[in-house]
């Protein structure tokens, strides 16, 4: 089945400040959405509202035509969210972190698959080190390795390219591109313009028509 994500009349406030209102868009399967806007325009809030971490003041997020709030776990199962935080435990090793975060996501993956995912992110040889000793970029790669093993169709990524080097940025782009090509959906915020040649690309700019 082809999934769709639809946002209707969404408005969000943060500390009495209206960030955006009357936001409407629809994202079909196999497409990518860039959320653009200046600092403080509400990009992160929008992403958090989409995945249910933030309750919007008004409006709805519909998944295949049904209210995502009512769907509950059935919707959360379809989404993977990667925020500003890497969501890593610094005292655990890369492979342990990956194992635990996938277990929370409800994804079953064997040891081999985990090692492979980490190796593909350029972390071969670093799997058994506590994440504490890795560099910022390496930590980000451990967090991103989750994307390789998840089966959730909707990826919501907040500034996924921060701290990554040029090669890793390229690699992540190709991962996102192949996900979108296979009928997945991705929503990302990024300050840097990233050329993606695949799928259908949409953009929304926050902070202009408030």
């Amino acid at each position, binding site marked *: 089945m082809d999934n769709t994500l639809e946002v209707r009349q969404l408005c969000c406030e943060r500390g009495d400040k209206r960030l955006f209102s009357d936001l409407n868009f629809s994202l079909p399967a196999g497409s990518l959405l860039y959320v653009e806007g200046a600092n403080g325009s509400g990009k992160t809030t929008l992403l958090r509202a989409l995945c*249910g971490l933030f309750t919007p003041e008004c409006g709805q997020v519909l998944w295949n035509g049904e209210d995502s709030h009512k769907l509950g776990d059935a919707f959360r199962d379809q989404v993977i969210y990667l*925020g500003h935080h890497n969501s*890593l435990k610094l005292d655990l090793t890369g492979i342990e972190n990956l194992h635990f975060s996938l277990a*929370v996501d409800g994804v079953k993956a064997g040891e081999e698959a985990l090692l492979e995912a980490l190796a593909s992110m350029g972390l071969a040889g670093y799997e058994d080190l506590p994440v504490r000793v890795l560099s910022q970029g390496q930590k980000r790669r451990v967090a991103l390795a989750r994307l390789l093993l998840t089966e959730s169709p909707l990826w919501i990524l907040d500034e996924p390219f921060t701290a990554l080097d040029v090669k890793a940025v390229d690699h992540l782009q190709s991962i996102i591109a192949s996900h979108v090509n296979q009928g997945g959906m991705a929503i990302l915020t990024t300050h840097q313009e990233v050329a993606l040649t695949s799928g259908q690309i949409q953009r929304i700019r926050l902070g202009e028509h408030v």
Partner: protein
Amino acid sequence: MFSVFFTIVRRDVLLAMRRRTDVLTTLFFFIIVVSLFPLGIGAEKNTLRHIAPGVVWIAALLASMLALERLFENDYADGTLEQMLIAPQSLSVIVAAKVLTHWLLTGLPIVLIAPLVGLQYYLPSEAVVTMTQALMLGTPVLSLIGAIGAALTLGLRGGGILLSLLILPLYIPVLVYGAGAIAASMMAKAPVQPYFMLLGAFLILALIFAPWATAAALRISSE
């Protein structure tokens, strides 16, 4: 459902093993608080016996609370809590797993060390047995109720103080009946069973409502 429960327990125990100081601080706090009373009051046998139930329970309350602040704080700071909130799993189950780990790392060590405290306070052996049993029933209640407070004060400045103001009054029933059980066991012809039944009732009530209330509080305070 069970797999995520055990995964979280395993993760938190593993984390605690990597940072053993956190676990040991709580235990040593308990031992030191309990040991201070004989030093301050004097080693008179009957006085110590008389105050032992209250002292043990108050020390257990404080020790359990000491670790409560960290229950969700670390997960909140590094973003893993966010992932748990949007996981396709029941948040109450995840919370229950975290509470169980909190009890394993703070409550259980106290239960195990309690007989030693009994010696220090000249408690008769029946009273030591009762004390261990009462702590076994009562300390999980402390962890369960405390989790609600920890979730409500998550991310607040000075949350630690607020947490104690919020939670300590709620600990009173456990303190009263927990200490009552030990005191009763030292009296002739005083039945201990009613105290255990009440503590058991608290535990069941807390088991039913606390994970759910904590999950709701987490959703509110993480926005």
